[in-house]
């Protein structure tokens, strides 16, 4: 049972990834920079785009999911590698104070703990996640999501006097 990894020239593959994603979905914005294909999608399209990436284009590895709190909206980055030099980066913006987005654990099972971490740190609810518990913080009696910008820390410092 061997895994088949993509072969061939990197530039041809990147063009194929971009075409494959553009043809199947309404992509908001897309670009190729070096070995990275960057696409912006609407939050409800994320599972479909990732499913195309894995099933049709053969990009097997989900590297990480980053959440950035933009104070009012959340920016999510899904970074995928084809393990042979190509990268696909899917970005989306979720609006609202208590955001909800569809899970991708059924497409990339490794997303399980990435999504648990995002829920723990930012309070993002992943609809359909099989096991949405906190990953690092206490399970009970802790109502905060520490990486939100609204979560103040006591030792907040400014560097005004420095040059």
């Amino acid at each position: 049972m061997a895994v088949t990894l993509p072969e061939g020239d990197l530039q041809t593959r990147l063009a194929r990834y971009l075409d494959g994603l553009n043809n199947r979905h309404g992509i908001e914005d897309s670009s190729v920079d070096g070995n990275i294909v960057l696409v912006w999608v609407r939050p409800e399209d994320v599972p479909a785009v990732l499913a195309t990436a894995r099933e049709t284009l053969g990009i097997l590895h989900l590297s990480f999911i980053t959440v950035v709190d933009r104070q009012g909206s959340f920016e999510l980055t899904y970074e995928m590698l084809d393990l042979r030099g190509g990268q696909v980066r899917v970005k989306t913006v979720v609006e609202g104070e208590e955001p909800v987005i569809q899970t991708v654990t059924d497409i990339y099972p490794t997303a399980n703990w990435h999504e648990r971490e995002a829920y723990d740190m930012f309070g993002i609810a992943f609809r359909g996640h099989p096991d949405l518990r906190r990953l690092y913080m206490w399970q009970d009696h802790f109502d905060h999501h520490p990486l939100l910008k609204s979560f103040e820390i006591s030792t907040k410092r400014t560097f005004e006097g420095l040059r």
Partner: protein
Amino acid sequence: MLGEQRRAEHEGALTEPASGRLASPDIRDEFGLETIDMNMGPQHPAMHGLLRLILELDGETVVRCDPVMGYLHRSKEKISENRMYPAVIPITDRIDYMNNIAMEYGYCLAVEKLLDVEIPPRADAIRALMNEFGRIMSHIPSVGFLLLELGAFTPILYAFRERERIQSIFEAVTGARMMFHYIRIGGVKADLPEGMTETMWEYIEGLEKRLQPDFVDLIGGNEIFISRTRGIGKMSQEKAVEMGLTGVPLRCTGVEFDVRKHYPYGWYKNLDFDVITDEAGDVEASYRVRMGEVRQSIRMIKQILENLPEGEVLGDLGRRLRPNEGDGIARIESARGEYAVHVVSDGSDTPYRVHYRTPCTVNMQLLQEIVPGHYLPDIMPIMGLIDPVSGSWDK
């Protein structure tokens, strides 16, 4: 070998699915058998730090394994948001405290992508050199820990003898034995001291001689080691890729993926090395891959020392860095797998958001998947296969 025969007798028990080894529901009802829940850790000497496993046991067979993390969570990502860019480097040191230099390297690469600066070639070469020393310093003790958890005390002493010697090299170069703060944004802190290349060369040649008798002949052919590790933690390539594994756990199943080779960074573009893989995908294979990687690291260190470029080691970027708005993402191959850093800048002097993709967090998902069906004492070798570090999975 006798060990292999014994293993073969138990082979059936290992290949049959987890449910096959459990008592059937009829027998369970007749004798009133039930599974018991047990906590393993967080204070457990073989848990590589602070990890709690909630286990459901049927006799001695594990039915369910649920890792609970967060006992060493220090919220490195929040701390990083509250410091200026150069001041985050010492924080990254404490993520993976067995292989610190790689953690600094990944963060500095990410910030350099934001700043779009050129690194002096000598600094690039020294970074790769120290990174490979760091890999040896992490791989050899990890084999020692695996054996220690199986009950063999000698290999950890041999392993720490090597680690001590490398730590002395690091002490001479960086000034610290563990938390180096050596790699800086734009280069490295200081040039190698006088006579250091000769010392390194001498050490590397000595290690090459000692590796075969101390770590390969002594461990690899040992009957007890083979019978405890062969076929344990066995996984297919599909499973490994599906779970997002990287590093040694992925390569020991035969998938050829190494960030240094396939997403090259820094000085690794100029180096000639092989990606070590193994077909078996069990604990013994991971041990073989680690030993192979130590040999490749020795090969790379020799290449770097032969062609070490001359010149500056640290460019002048000013004290207060203000990168342009945007994303800086860099990934490197740490001793445990793919380590990626995502730095988001808003144009000010502190990062807006820093995300560390630590290899241990992702690789540890494997525990849920492959531990069920194994016997309780097999958890230790499986932890040795993943080789996690507490600071790295908890951030």
